[in-house]
């Protein structure tokens, strides 16, 4: 089943139908979440209005990790099943993940300055997210470092899998070490420790940005599939022209 859906032709057909829905739903939810967080959500009793940065910082922090997880899944698919679509998807996820991680770090810094009095501290959470950013950059560089793209994809996949160890470190850094960064307010198991007036805009914003992340990576992968087809068609044309020239 996996191979049937990961077939490049099938992927182009399916993604063509899904993409507009992902883009428009993601854009709408993001617009609602961002406007709600910026203009209508209440101030925090302790942080005041700087808490509004949460509605953009937290979704980008989640997506930085989720993006890396999807990169690792693609790497497994690539190393175990040698699926070319997984290679292309991984190569397209990495720059988007790096961009989202950079925004997470930048917005965190903009939140840290008025709250902690510092743009940056070498706190366990901040440092582990910075390492995640470097892992993304490493993947981008490694994939492009070889003349043979297959070797680049393979090296990138191995790096992505080694780097997965950083994900639980990011998640539990605030519990394992004494950090300036606050612990999680929302978990998968327990009830959230955040007021519903703040939780709802955060959820809208998180789901909206997640759909946009998915739409962007799918669109980039779609472009990469088409670009590869163009290259192979041009090469086939060039080789047949060469053969005809040799025969004449």
């Amino acid at each position, binding site marked *: 089943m996996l191979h049937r859906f990961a077939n490049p032709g099938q992927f182009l057909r399916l993604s063509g139908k899904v993409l507009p829905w992902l883009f428009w739903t993601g854009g709408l939810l993001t617009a609602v979440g961002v406007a709600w967080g910026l203009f209508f959500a209440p101030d925090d009793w302790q942080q*005041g209005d700087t808490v509004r940065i949460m509605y953009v*910082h937290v979704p980008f922090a989640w997506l930085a990790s989720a993006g890396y997880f999807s990169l690792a899944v693609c790497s497994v698919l690539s190393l175990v099943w040698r699926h070319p679509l997984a290679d292309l998807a991984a190569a397209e996820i990495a720059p988007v993940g790096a961009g989202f991680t950079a925004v997470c770090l930048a917005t965190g810094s903009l939140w840290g300055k008025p709250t902690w009095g510092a743009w940056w501290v070498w706190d366990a959470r901040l440092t582990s997210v910075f390492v995640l950013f470097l892992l993304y950059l490493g993947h981008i560089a490694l994939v492009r470092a070889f003349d043979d793209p297959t070797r680049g994809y393979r090296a990138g996949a191995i790096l992505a899998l080694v780097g997965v160890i950083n994900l639980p470190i990011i998640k539990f850094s605030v519990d394992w070490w004494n950090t300036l960064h606050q612990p999680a307010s929302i978990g998968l198991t327990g009830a959230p420790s955040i007021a519903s007036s703040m939780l709802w805009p955060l959820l809208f914003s998180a789901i909206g940005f997640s759909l946009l992340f998915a739409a962007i990576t799918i669109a980039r992968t779609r472009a990469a599939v088409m670009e590869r087809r163009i290259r192979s*068609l041009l090469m086939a044309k060039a080789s047949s022209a060469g053969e005809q020239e040799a025969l004449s």
Partner: protein
Amino acid sequence: MTHLPYIVAAYVIAVGLPVIFAAEAFFRVRSARLRLEAIDMRRDRGRS
């Protein structure tokens, strides 16, 4: 809003990046589709 510059900067960065990525992806897909169509058309003309 006492910390308005920090808040505005965070929102500009957070909204701006997905917009840039989305626009880049849109133009990349469109350019690849047009090139593919052009190659297919040339191939079809060559066959007939």
